[in-house]
């Protein structure tokens, strides 16, 4: 096929004598080999992916720690230092060691939904996220992943919220939406058929760390609503019956710990805010093993009673936890 190029005396342009391979010929052969290799590998990957997709979607694991028996189901600490608040509530719960064993893969799931600065209180405070990462690392976690599927451009959200820098500095692997692979999962209820990001299924422990803020439809977005952030395309349909769907997600995703960040709370124009006039510096953090109780506490920081939130009532009816605020032990202000 390529005989035509050869003439007596070889190819003077490439300086190759007869019988040897010229530079051009070598480049052609190499690129052909590379192309063939890529084609074979691509085909294999393609079919492997299809085989995997055909297998039934895995169920969402239950990440709760059965043996953990802190005296109270949730603790809250107040003070100007957010990291210190986190350390105090964790200590009251028996330390992160009570929840994370050596070798665990921990997913820390903050709310990084929006392209906003920490002062605007639309995302979880980066200091709270970083302190949780540090605690997990100190407890012996093999890997700590911080991930969320943002509503705005994911790269901007993770950069401007300060969460990428803070969590990476604390030793976490930070994955934004442009880096996350979506996989099928079995989610009973309205979210059936939606995909979740892959690190969620690989995690052996999950810490849910939302920020407490106003929401135009559900009135408040807290821990159970934060599970929207693990879901892929199609989650915008869940708003059509939000109290039911939030409670359903609360029944499907059972985190090891829920940590409500009320360092700053957003009282209006939620869930993304903007104006600093809508932000109130509360300086509090709550952590517990009862997601409904934590959400009830978070609502109280927004001056909302548990009965004012439809999804809290719905979750209680489903037996996911209690909204009895007396069960949160306040550790006081420092």
């Amino acid at each position: 096929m390529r005989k035509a190029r050869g003439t007596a005396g070889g190819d003077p342009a490439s300086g190759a004598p007869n019988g040897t391979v010229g530079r051009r010929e070598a480049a052609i052969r190499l690129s052909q080999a590379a192309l063939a290799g890529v084609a074979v590998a691509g085909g294999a990957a393609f079919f492997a992916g299809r085989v995997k997709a055909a297998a039934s979607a895995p169920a969402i694991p239950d990440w709760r720690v059965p043996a953990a028996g802190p005296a109270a189901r949730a603790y809250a600490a107040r003070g100007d230092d957010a990291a210190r608040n986190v350390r105090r509530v964790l200590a009251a719960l028996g330390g992160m060691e009570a929840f994370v064993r050596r070798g665990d893969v921990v997913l820390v799931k903050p709310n990084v939904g929006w392209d906003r600065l920490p002062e605007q209180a639309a995302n979880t405070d980066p200091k709270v996220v970083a302190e949780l990462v540090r605690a997990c690392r100190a407890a012996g976690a093999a890997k700590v992943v911080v991930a969320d599927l943002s509503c705005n451009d994911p790269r901007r959200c993770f950069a401007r919220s300060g969460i990428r820098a803070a969590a990476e500095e604390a030793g976490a692997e930070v994955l934004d939406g442009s880096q996350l692979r979506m996989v099928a999962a079995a989610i009973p209820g309205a979210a059936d058929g939606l995909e979740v990001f892959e690190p969620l299924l690989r995690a052996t422990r999950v810490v849910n760390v939302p920020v407490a803020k106003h929401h135009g439809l559900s009135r408040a977005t807290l821990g159970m609503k934060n599970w929207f952030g693990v879901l892929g395309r199609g989650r915008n349909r869940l708003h059509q019956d939000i109290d039911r769907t939030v409670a359903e997600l609360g029944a499907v995703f059972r985190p090891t710990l829920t940590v409500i960040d009320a360092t700053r709370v957003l009282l209006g124009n939620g869930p993304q805010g903007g104006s600093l006039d809508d932000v109130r510096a509360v300086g509090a953090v709550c952590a517990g093993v009862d997601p409904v109780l934590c959400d009830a506490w978070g609502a109280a920081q927004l001056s909302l009673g548990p009965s004012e939130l439809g999804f809290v009532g719905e979750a209680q009816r489903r037996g996911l936890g209690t909204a009895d605020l007396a069960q949160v032990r306040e550790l006081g202000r420092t």
Partner: protein
Amino acid sequence: MRWTRRIRILWQGTFLALSLWLLERLAAGDARAFRTGVLHEADPLSAASLALADGGFPVALLLAAALLLLTLVLGRFFCGWICPLGTLQQLSSWLLTPRTRRESLDVNRLRPWHAWKYALLAFLLAFALLGSTQAGLLDPLSLLARGLASGVWPAVLHRPPVPGGILAFALLLAVVLASRWVPRFFCRALCPLGALLGVLGRFALLRVTRGKPACTDCRLCTFACQGGDEPLGIHRPGECHVCLNCLDACPEHALRYGLVLAQPDRPARPDVGRRALVGGALLGLVGAPVVRASGGGREAAHPRLIRPPGAVAEEAFLDRCVKCMLCGAACPTGTIQPALAVAGLEGFWTPVVVPRRGGCEFACTRCGEACPTGAIRPLAAARKTGYDGAPPVRIGTAFVDRGRCLPWANQIACIVCEEMCPTDPKAITVARADERRPDGTAVRLQRPQVEPLRCVGCGICEHRCPVGEEAAIRVSSVGETRDPLNRMVLGS
């Protein structure tokens, strides 16, 4: 291989790699402030078109003027040493050609159709003179950047589909593959930038000359000649890409590239008939008004002709845009796309915002930073969002389609658009209503409505609306900051 050729290949490789890398970084959202468009800024064709169309003197023209001056000294070195599209063609011709050496000799002869590019240049400059910059259609830098930014990156990076991108990529592919049959066919026959440089290149001080006594007329010099400029015959410095392959190929070392002060004969004019030149120019002068009359955003605003934030008014925009799609590559959401029909015939391949694809990020200003010609002005984030106190930069206004909107039409709760709305206070507010579903159950609804004076037209509402293929809230261009006549609310 002689050192001249080695160095040339090194230069070509460096500039190709650099331009591809910069484009890749731009698309990957690298936060470092690279001047991705620097090659485009030094493009004399863009600069000339802008100066003719806009009547202004773009700052970028300084870089372009420097390139022109260098061309007067060195010849068309840009084509042979720098232009990444030229390098790609040379690469494809080297890799793909099954030509025999006899065929190479034949194909590298100067042909009459090499003069097409001069007529094309006359046509494009005449078009620009009447206020419509079309140079970007065939400008090699724009052609390459557009083909990659809107054709390749969306496929590789799993971005939303770009219908205009496949055409841009097809043109790029055709240009590169044409070199299989005729080396650098695009450079020789079509490139308007090459033509502009060729007009000056024929006066170049440094050029290839032949030492007559040593030359045996073997014609080996034409085997690898890139420009098809006949180093052996009446050499055409205006066609020569200064690739210096001929020097390398000459077994007698009879050719040299150096200072020629005393011209032995007059510089060979470009082999273009006066008729072709005048014809090209006339075609441009007649064509520009005709194309303009075919419709677009110039005389009347078009609802879906939404330009990126910071874009200047439509008239000036069409003067300045060179259709390079760097803005689209820079856009993190993929909402900026090359227009097919929405901007009219003259706006083909100019960037438009397609909100259903992505929505414009509220505080993002990357498109304006990437634009090399000022068609999209750079904005500070505080200016764009209005956080500096002045009104924000609007690119349109959202309208609720009450016939499709779930709470309005179907008594189903939904507030996704309100939730997504980034302004403060929100431009989308909700009206509470207690209604009954068709089956009689009572529902409490929150029905979205848009406050037009707060809406910036970012389109994230349209992008995120859960109503299937066509959103129930859609942005149209009315209210855009750049056009004081495209308004609806009194006092805005």
